[in-house]
């Protein structure tokens, strides 16, 4: 594996810092400019509340990271975790940074979004990663300013392409979504295994539906605000819309048109939108390809050989893909900036402090990659230990194998050895993680 441990530790450290920094963000989340404080106070409170809620859960999650990450979570815990993630991925129109947002537009499906949400949001707010912009399908150089403004006004907060319910979930009865308990939907006549299978399917379908409702609700508010006579302070004015979309560029991966500046690959300076960047990750744990041992069952392979290579640059294949982002110098709006509705062309960002570029790798936004790899190794170890145990106990039961008198004790010894080996390995994995 081409991974430098020191780097991983550094990334983990950032991840932990991010969690505590969430609190700072919540304070910074109120916009810099003041005025009309009274009318705004209500909104700000709700915004701050929502961010504070995030902070609380981030804090509690921060605590939970100090506990054993290998602990098996109950189905309910896992469900709560997934639901929280889906909620955090809703695009909110008032959580805006330089004309973009903190969550993706939705070119890729929800279950493909496995990055650390807190880290990415923090990076965007700190202007170290381009925000998630709403893309245009196409851009025509001949469009007039009026046309551009009209087109931008028609953009939704989130793509509607990925909201169709997948076929396998379509005919499922999902019950009352406002009731968090859906045990009554589960067929108790099924075997335990089938019940839990049914449960996870129904949960998935419910979450799918809930997510659509959450995003739709946000979209509706966004639309309503757009139609209001007085420009909502979180919405961009025409000058900002033009600044964003008039001189945009295309992401070479998704072919969509985005405001500039984009993130750039560190190795070959090619642009990439944030939505595509967060999709790029190291390979899923697998056995080395070059070994011609495909007929061998995975159970019979050494789990420690399981590897996961860091991602390569999609453009030039340089290992350890990383991006750099230089924040725009003619607009600092939204969180930690001026109100998007008050943007003027002379909103220059002071560039007296030349900061070193902040390099972000795919591992950086997924600090748990190593835990995932270890979990896969452990799973395989458990499977192979089970296979050995079954094999050995078969030998114990089958008297035809009992040729020698001391076989039984020998086998028992081997079983114990196997068990010790397994707990040792599990222990090692844990301490390695610490």
């Amino acid at each position, binding site marked *: 594996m081409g991974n430098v441990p020191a780097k991983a530790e550094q990334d983990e450290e950032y991840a932990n810092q991010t969690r505590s920094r969430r609190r700072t963000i919540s304070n910074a989340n109120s916009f810099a400019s003041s005025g009309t404080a009274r009318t705004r106070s209500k909104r700000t409170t709700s915004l701050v509340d929502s961010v504070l809620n995030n902070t609380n859960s981030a804090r509690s999650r921060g605590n939970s990271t100090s506990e054993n990450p290998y602990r098996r979570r109950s189905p309910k815990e896992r469900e709560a975790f997934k639901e929280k993630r889906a909620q955090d991925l809703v695009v909110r129109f008032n959580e805006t940074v330089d004309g973009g947002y903190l969550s993706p537009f939705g070119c*890729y499906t929800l279950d493909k979004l496995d990055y650390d949400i807190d880290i990415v949001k923090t990076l965007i707010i700190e202007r170290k990663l381009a925000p998630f912009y709403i893309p245009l399908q196409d851009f025509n150089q001949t469009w007039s300013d009026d046309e551009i403004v009209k087109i931008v006004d028609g953009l939704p907060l989130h793509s509607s392409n990925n909201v169709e319910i997948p076929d396998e979930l379509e005919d499922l009865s999902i019950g009352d979504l406002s009731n968090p308990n859906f045990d009554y939907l589960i067929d108790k006549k099924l075997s335990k295994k089938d019940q839990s299978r049914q449960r996870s399917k129904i949960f998935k379908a419910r979450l799918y539906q809930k997510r659509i409702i959450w995003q739709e609700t946000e979209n509706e508010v966004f639309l309503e605000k757009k139609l209001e006579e007085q420009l909502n302070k979180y919405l961009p004015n025409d000058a900002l819309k033009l600044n964003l979309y008039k001189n945009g560029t295309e992401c070479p991966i*998704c072919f969509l048109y985005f405001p500039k500046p984009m993130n750039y690959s560190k190795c070959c300076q090619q642009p990439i939108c944030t939505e595509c960047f967060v999709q790029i990750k190291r390979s899923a744990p697998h056995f080395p390809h070059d070994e011609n041992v495909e007929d061998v069952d995975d159970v019979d392979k050494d789990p420690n050989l399981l590897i996961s290579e860091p991602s390569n640059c*999609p*453009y030039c294949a340089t290992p350890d893909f990383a991006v750099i982002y230089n924040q725009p110098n003619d607009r600092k709006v939204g969180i930690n900036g001026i109100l998007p509705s008050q943007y003027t062309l002379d909103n220059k960002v002071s560039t007296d402090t030349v900061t070193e570029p902040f390099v972000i790798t795919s591992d950086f936004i997924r600090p748990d990659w190593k835990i995932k790899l270890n979990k896969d190794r452990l799973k395989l170890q458990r499977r192979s230990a089970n296979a050995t145990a079954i094999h050995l106990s078969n030998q114990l039961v089958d008297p035809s194998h009992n040729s020698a008198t001391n076989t039984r004790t020998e086998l028992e010894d081997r079983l114990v050895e196997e068990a010790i080996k397994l707990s040792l390995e599990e222990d090692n994995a844990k301490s390695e993680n610490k």
Partner: protein
Amino acid sequence: MHNNPQETERLISDPVPGITAEPHDDNLRYFKVSIEGPEQSPYEKGIFQLELYLPDDYPMEAPKVRFLTKIYHPNIDRLGRICLDILKTNWSPALQIRTVLLSVQALLASPNPNDPLANDVAEDWIKNEEGAKNTAREWTLLYAKKE
């Protein structure tokens, strides 16, 4: 990823010489592809039909490509499956349908019997290259006819 109409549109408006790719009417992820056999290869003058499918995760995952026309080639098996690195481990999201099809065409121009998918063909190719090429020519005449 939702199939981006932009890529399809450009594929049609700015086609690669010798290659056509048209999306299916009912399923925009499914493409009917034809590739002309490269000149000076045993596949010259043949028109090969292929199917290309964009999985849900495209472009993070490689498109699935398969020959429909029978072909005698060490890196293409009886089912039309293609052994090409960029379709597997070396896939990059910056590659496109266009580059994939160009690579398939290049594979026809330079077969690689040392990394075979069809073992019997590869063996034939290594032992008796001229004979294998003749078989490939025969198959091209027989199966890869213009429609």
